[in-house]
C-alpha cells in the first residue's frame, strides 16, 4: 500500500477537452490512489483553479480545442512563474502529432504521454516522476525562490551521487551558475558535459555564456552552428534572434525568428518577437500578418495580452489604417481588467485617434493613460505610454517616463533595451538614446549616494527626505528602497520613536523582503530597528 500513500496526498489537475478522456484519466488516477483530483475541460477553468490552489501534478492534453494548446499553456504558466518547478507537468499527445509537439518544446514539460496508454502505464510513469520530484525537490525549491547560490549547493549534493539524475542536475546547475554570474564556472561545466555527449542544451549554454561575456559574434556563431546540426532546436532560434537584435542587427534577427516559425509556428512569445522586430525594422505588413493570425487563433484564450492588441494596432497605424487600429483596441477593451493592460490599450487608442486626426479624442485617451501612477506600471506599459507621447509630440513627458522606467529597474537589461527602442523609434540616434539612458542610470546612483553621504554626515533629515521620496517614486529599485528603510531606522534609533516614520520604515523593509528575501540590507535594518526605543 506504499504506492497509495505516496500518491494520495498529491494534488492533481487534469485538463482535457474530451469528456471520454477525462473520465478515463479520472478513473485511472483514482484507481492509482490519487484522492485530491480536479478535472476540467479548458485552460480558463484550469487557471481559475490554479489561482486558488497549488497542484503537484498537472496532466494536460496537447489539443485543447480552443486555439491554445498544452505546450502554449505550459509556456504561459512558466513565463509568469505561475507554477512551481516542483510541479510535474505532463503533456498528453497522440503519436501522430508527437513529432511536432516535441520539436516545439523550447519550454519542455516533465514528460509526454503518448496516447493510447493504459492505467498501468500511467501509474508507472507517475511513480517515476514522483520519485524524480522528491529527488530534485530542494533544488527546485531554491530555484523557485531564485536563490541561485543555494541551487548550486543543492545540485552539487546531487551530483556527488553520480546517479541517474546526474545530467539533469548538471543542466540546472549550469543555469544557476549563469544566473549568479559565475560565467567561467558555467562554461567549464558545459564543456565537461559536451565531452560526454554533444547535447544541444550544453552547446546553447556555452553560447549563452559567450553572449553574457560580451562576445556576441562568437555567441551568434555558436548558435548558428547548433542550428546547422539541430534545425529543430527552437531555443537556439530564440537565442540567436535575441543576440542579433541586441547587437543591432534587427533584420537578421527577424529573419532568424521567421525561419523558426517555419519549423514550428510555436508559441505566442515567438509571434511577439517577430511582430516587434517587424515593427522595429519597418516591415509593418509582417507584424500585421503574424499578430492578427495569432490573435484570431487564440481568440478566447487567456494567454493573450493587452500588449498583443497594442502591437497589432501599432502595425495598422503604421500602415496608415487608423480605423483598423481603433477596431483592434475596441475588440480588446473589456477583456483585460488590470491597470497596466488598460493603460496600454488607452495609449494605443490615443495614437490611433491622433493618426486619424481626432486630436481631442487622442488627448482624452492619453490623459486616461497618464492618470496612472508610473510607479505602479510595469516597464512594458511605461514604454507604451512613452511611445504614444513621442508620437503626439509630448517629448518631455515621454523622456520623464523613460527615465522613471530605467531608474525603477536598475539592473534589468531588457528594460533598458525597451527604453532604447522607444527612443530610437522616436527618431533619436542610437548613441543619443544610449546617452540618455546612461544619464538616467547615473542620476539614480547619484541620488542614492547623496542620501547615504548625508546620513553618514549626520544630516539625517535630509537623507530621509531624499531617499523616501526616491523610494516612493522607484519602489522596484531595491538599493534605494533598502537605503530608505535603513536611514529611517537610523533616524528612529537616534531621534526617538515616531509612529509614522516607523510605519514607513517597515513598509520599505517589507517591500525589499518581498522582492529579495535574502537581501543583505535586511539584517542591517533589523539591527537598527532593535535600537529604537518603543514608547
Amino acid at each position, binding site marked *: 500500500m506504499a504506492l497509495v500513500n505516496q500518491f494520495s496526498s498529491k494534488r492533481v489537475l487534469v485538463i482535457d477537452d474530451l469528456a471520454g478522456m477525462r473520465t478515463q484519466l479520472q478513473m485511472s488516477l483514482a484507481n492509482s490512489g490519487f484522492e485530491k483530483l480536479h478535472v476540467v475541460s479548458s485552460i480558463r477553468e484550469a487557471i481559475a483553479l490554479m489561482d486558488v490552489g497549488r497542484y503537484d501534478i498537472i496532466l494536460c492534453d496537447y489539443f485543447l480545442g480552443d486555439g491554445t494548446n498544452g505546450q502554449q499553456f505550459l509556456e504561459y504558466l512558466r513565463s509568469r512563474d505561475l507554477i512551481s518547478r516542483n510541479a510535474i507537468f505532463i503533456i498528453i499527445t497522440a503519436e501522430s502529432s508527437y*513529432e511536432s509537439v516535441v520539436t516545439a518544446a523550447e519550454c519542455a514539460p516533465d514528460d509526454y504521454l503518448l496516447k493510447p496508454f493504459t492505467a*498501468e502505464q500511467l501509474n*508507472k510513469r507517475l511513480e517515476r516522476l514522483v520519485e524524480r520530484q522528491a529527488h530534485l525537490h530542494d533544488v527546485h525549491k531554491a530555484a523557485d525562490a531564485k536563490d541561485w547560490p543555494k541551487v548550486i549547493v543543492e545540485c552539487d549534493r546531487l551530483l556527488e551521487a553520480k546517479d541517474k539524475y546526474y545530467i539533469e542536475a548538471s543542466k540546472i546547475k549550469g543555469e544557476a551558475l549563469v544566473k549568479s554570474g559565475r560565467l567561467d564556472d558555467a562554461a567549464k561545466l558545459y564543456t565537461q558535459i559536451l565531452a560526454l555527449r554533444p547535447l544541444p542544451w550544453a552547446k546553447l549554454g556555452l553560447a549563452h555564456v559567450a553572449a553574457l561575456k560580451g562576445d556576441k559574434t562568437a555567441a551568434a556563431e555558436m548558435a548558428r552552428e547548433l542550428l546547422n546540426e539541430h534545425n529543430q532546436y527552437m531555443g537556439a532560434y530564440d537565442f540567436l534572434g535575441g543576440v542579433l537584435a541586441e547587437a543591432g542587427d534587427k533584420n537578421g534577427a527577424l529573419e532568424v525568428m521567421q525561419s523558426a516559425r517555419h519549423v514550428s509556428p510555436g508559441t505566442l512569445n515567438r509571434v511577439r518577437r517577430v511582430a516587434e522586430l517587424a515593427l522595429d525594422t519597418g516591415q509593418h505588413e509582417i507584424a500585421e500578418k503574424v499578430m492578427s493570425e495569432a490573435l484570431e487563433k487564440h481568440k478566447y484564450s487567456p494567454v493573450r495580452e493587452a500588449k498583443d492588441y497594442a502591437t497589432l494596432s501599432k502595425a495598422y497605424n503604421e500602415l496608415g489604417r487608423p480605423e483598423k487600429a481603433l477596431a483592434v483596441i475596441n475588440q480588446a477593451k473589456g477583456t483585460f481588467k488590470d491597470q497596466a493592460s488598460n493603460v496600454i490599450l488607452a495609449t494605443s487608442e490615443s495614437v490611433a485617434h491622433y493618426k486619424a486626426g481626432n486630436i481631442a479624442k487622442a488627448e482624452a485617451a492619453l490623459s486616461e493613460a497618464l492618470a496612472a501612477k508610473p510607479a505602479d506600471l510595469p516597464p512594458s506599459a511605461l514604454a507604451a505610454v512613452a511611445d504614444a507621447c513621442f508620437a503626439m509630440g509630448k517629448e518631455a513627458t515621454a523622456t520623464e517616463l523613460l527615465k522613471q522606467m530605467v531608474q525603477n529597474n536598475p539592473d534589468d537589461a531588457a528594460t533598458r533595451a525597451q527604453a532604447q527602442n522607444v527612443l530610437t523609434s522616436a527618431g533619436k540616434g542610437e548613441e543619443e538614446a544610449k546617452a540618455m539612458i546612461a544619464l538616467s542610470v547615473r542620476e539614480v546612483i547619484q541620488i542614492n549616494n547623496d542620501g547615504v553621504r548625508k546620513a553618514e554626515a549626520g544630516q539625517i533629515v535630509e537623507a530621509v527626505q531624499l531617499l523616501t521620496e526616491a523610494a516612493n517614486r522607484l519602489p522596484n529599485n531595491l538599493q534605494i528602497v533598502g537605503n530608505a528603510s535603513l536611514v529611517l531606522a537610523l533616524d528612529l534609533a537616534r531621534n526617538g520613536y515616531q509612529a509614522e516614520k516607523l510605519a514607513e520604515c517597515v513598509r520599505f523593509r517589507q517591500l525589499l523582503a518581498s522582492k529579495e528575501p535574502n537581501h543583505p540590507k535586511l539584517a542591517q535594518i533589523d539591527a537598527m530597528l532593535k535600537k529604537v526605543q518603543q514608547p
Partner: protein
Amino acid sequence: MINELDVAVIHDIKNQLAQLALMLERRGDCQQEKAIAFAASKRLSTLLLAHLQQDGMLKAHVDTACPADLLEDVASEYRSLFPNLDIDVDDAEAPPFWFYDTALLRLALENALHNACRHAGQRVSLKAVKFGDRLHMTVADDGPGFSEDMLLLNAGETPMPASRNGTGLGLYLAAHIAQLHENSGECGTIFLENRDGAVFTLSLP
C-alpha cells in the same frame, strides 16, 4: 510501403484496438485480453512509425535517460501480457544514465520483447550493461532461437519489412532506431545471436 489511405485506416484500427483495450481494462476479469488488444494496437503504431521512417521523418531526440528504468518499464508491461512467463531485469551492471530517445528505444525494445515472449519457453531476460564505450541492452529468451534467415541480419542485410512470421517489421524498425542514435561518428546497431535461445542486442554509442 503503404499509401496515405492505408495509413489513415491503420491509424483508425489502432485507435479502435486501444479503445477496446481501455474498455477491457475497466472490467476486472479480462486483463490478459486487455493486454493482447493493447499490444496489437502498439504493433500498428510500430507500422506507422516505420512509415514515418521510410519518409525520413523519424528523428531521434537524444537526451539523458536511465536504462534500468526503461527495461523495468517494458518488462512490467509484458508481464501482464504474458503472465505465465518469467520476465526478469538484470540492471546490476547498468550505467546510471545514458543518452538516447526514450520513446523510440522503448518501441525498439518492446518489439524485441514481444518476439521473445512469443517464442520463449518459460523465461525472458532483459539486461543493460556498459560494454566499452557503448550501452548494450539485450533481450534473451529460452526458445528455439532465431532462424538462419534472421541471423543474416548480422552480415549487414536489412531485414524484410514484411517477413512471414511478422517479426521482420519490428527488427527493421529497431535497426533504424538504433541507427538514428549517433555519437562521434559511431552509430547504434542491433545484432541477433543464438545462445540458449534467441538473444537480441541493441548497442548504442
